[in-house]
């Protein structure tokens, strides 16, 4: 088992730079997730680790071995594709044992490994079927089984759950998590779904425009984002952002005016100048109705989920503000109220999107 280390990886298609100087490391046995909006380069990065794309610069190491110029089959990686990439003319067993049959492994060895993988993935009853006779979730498991049979040092997943329906996705997510604990191999997973990233990852790498915007443990990214992009990308519903002007500063932080109201933010480092433009971010669960201060809003819709509800309100400037309510059964639609947050829960960003701490 080995970790994966990328150093100064670059990739260009013609004049178009897709990956711009990415360096990162996933320790062995960890579950790393590349997450980001479409076009951020996350799949390209994964395909470069697999060897399906050349690098335009930089170095890829797997288990301490430089594999930048090594062909895909010899990197010790197995990949699960979004489309599953199952061979329609082969049975489930033959699909899973494909790599071994290419290598002309003895039949009994092949069968034993396929049976073991099928047992782990509960596919034993389906080994003789063709992929076309399986459901989406089962096909996905066959694709994972094909990877397991190869006993790779590193598993690569390219948006493996995006073709499944919502319920199955949640179920497969859990199974993947369980599988990772069971096998203990290094896994790298690409997704555009931040919920998948949060729930599966040991380490998340948030990508945008070919850059790693921030890397870290899921809760670290959630609690302490480096920039507005990560703050907005991680968390559902997304963080609320409010454009504000600094009105006062003190040793603990600053107060800013926005949308006809005021918010106070805690800030340990250098304070912004009075009158400076600033962007404030508050997560929905940290916004609560307040008597005085805060932002005046009018409630438009409340999404009742039973245990909690997400209230969509409009500020006097017309901005959409979402806040969470727990355990309340009051109807809020149409009401005007003020909402605020504790200073330590108000994040401050420069207008360029950099976090102020």
């Amino acid at each position, binding site marked *: 088992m080995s970790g994966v280390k990328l150093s100064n990886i670059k990739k260009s298609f013609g004049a178009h730079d897709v990956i711009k100087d990415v360096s990162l490391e996933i320790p062995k046995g960890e579950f790393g997730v590349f997450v980001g909006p479409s076009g951020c380069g996350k799949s390209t990065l994964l395909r470069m680790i697999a060897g399906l794309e050349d690098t335009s610069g930089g170095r890829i190491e797997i288990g301490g071995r430089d594999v930048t110029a090594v062909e*895909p089959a010899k990197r010790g*990686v197995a*990949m699960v594709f979004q489309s599953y*990439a199952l*061979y329609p*003319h082969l049975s489930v067993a033959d699909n899973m044992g*494909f*790599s071994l049959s290419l290598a002309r492994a003895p039949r009994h060895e092949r069968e034993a490994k396929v049976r073991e993988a099928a047992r782990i993935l509960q596919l034993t009853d389906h080994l003789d079927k063709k992929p076309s006779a399986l459901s989406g979730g089962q096909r996905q498991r066959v694709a994972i089984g*094909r990877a397991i049979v190869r006993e790779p040092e590193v598993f690569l997943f390219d948006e493996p759950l995006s073709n499944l329906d919502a319920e199955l996705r949640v179920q497969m997510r859990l199974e993947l998590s369980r599988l990772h604990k069971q096998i203990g191999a290094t896994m790298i997973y690409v997704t555009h779904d931040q919920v998948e990233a949060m729930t599966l990852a040991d380490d998340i790498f948030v990508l945008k425009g070919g850059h790693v915007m921030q890397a870290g443990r899921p809760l670290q990214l959630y609690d302490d984002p480096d920039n507005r992009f990560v703050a907005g990308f991680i968390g559902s519903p997304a963080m609320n952002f409010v454009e504000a002007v600094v009105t006062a500063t003190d040793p603990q932080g600053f107060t800013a005016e926005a949308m006809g109201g005021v918010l106070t933010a805690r800030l340990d480092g250098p304070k912004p100048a009075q009158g400076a433009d600033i962007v404030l971010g508050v997560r929905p669960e940290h916004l609560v109705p307040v008597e005085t201060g805060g932002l005046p809003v009018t409630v438009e819709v409340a999404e009742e989920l039973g245990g909690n509800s997400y209230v969509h309100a409009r500020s006097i400037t017309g901005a959409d503000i979402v806040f969470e309510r727990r355990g309340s059964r009051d109807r809020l639609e149409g009401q005007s109220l003020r909402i605020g947050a504790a200073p330590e829960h108000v994040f401050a960003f420069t207008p360029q999107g950099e976090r102020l701490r």
Partner: protein
Amino acid sequence: MSMIRNNRRHKLVAYSLILPFVAIFALVFAYPVIEVIRLSFTDAPLIGSGDWVGLDNYKRLLSDRLFYTSLKNNGYFVLLTVVPTTVIALLIALAVNRLSGRMQALALVLFFTPYVLPVSVVTQIWAWMLDFQFGILQPVLEFFTGKPVPVFKNPFWVMPAVAVVTIWWTNGFNVLLFIAGLRNIPEELYEAAKLDGATSRQLFFRVTWPLLWPVTALVLTLQLILQLKIFDQVYLLSEGGPFNSSYVLLLMVYREAFQLNNGGYAAAISLVLFLIIVVVSVLQFQILRIGGRDK
């Protein structure tokens, strides 16, 4: 009540829509076919009616040596064309598929152009290229055989030469079918196989070939039907000669009907050819399908 009326109207509309096709089909296909069958049991000339002779035409056919010669030549021609043209088309398609963008389009146009030409132009081109005295391909033949060969007047060379002309003429269409089939194979299957350590040989035999099999079966069957119907090229290049060594069944039909005025006998031959084509092609397609299922 209105439901039933609606339903009836629905059917009327449907029938009125298919009627023109059924009428034309009956007029230009069903009626002639029935006429040919009827004709084959008479001694009718090409134009006008004849007397009922029962199975006489078929009996005559069974003792006609030219029939056996033609049948054998038809079979020989199928051997010379069907599998070779399929293999060549597959190889060309694999090569063209590696090109991209404009180069691929250009290559496709090049291979498809002969298919657009009328048969008379095709045969004229090849008659010139293989001309005994000034054909530009004669030096090539001379290189291998040591002397110029009058290909269309030589019993050994005539059928292979007609086969080459036919393959050159019709190959573009098969290339097109294979290209379409190749494009239908998702790129990820190749990537997955590469990750699994497949060599390029294994990529072809383990991925491309089995997934292309339905197209291959289609091409083989279409070719079989087409090549059993060989007529124009032989008629234009060798007229069945020399010494009937390129005589084929349709040429025989043509001779009996239009040169010897034996409408009934010609009808019997064409009916036999029709049955051969139906039986052989259905049989072949079934065998290929079963073969495909095992893959």
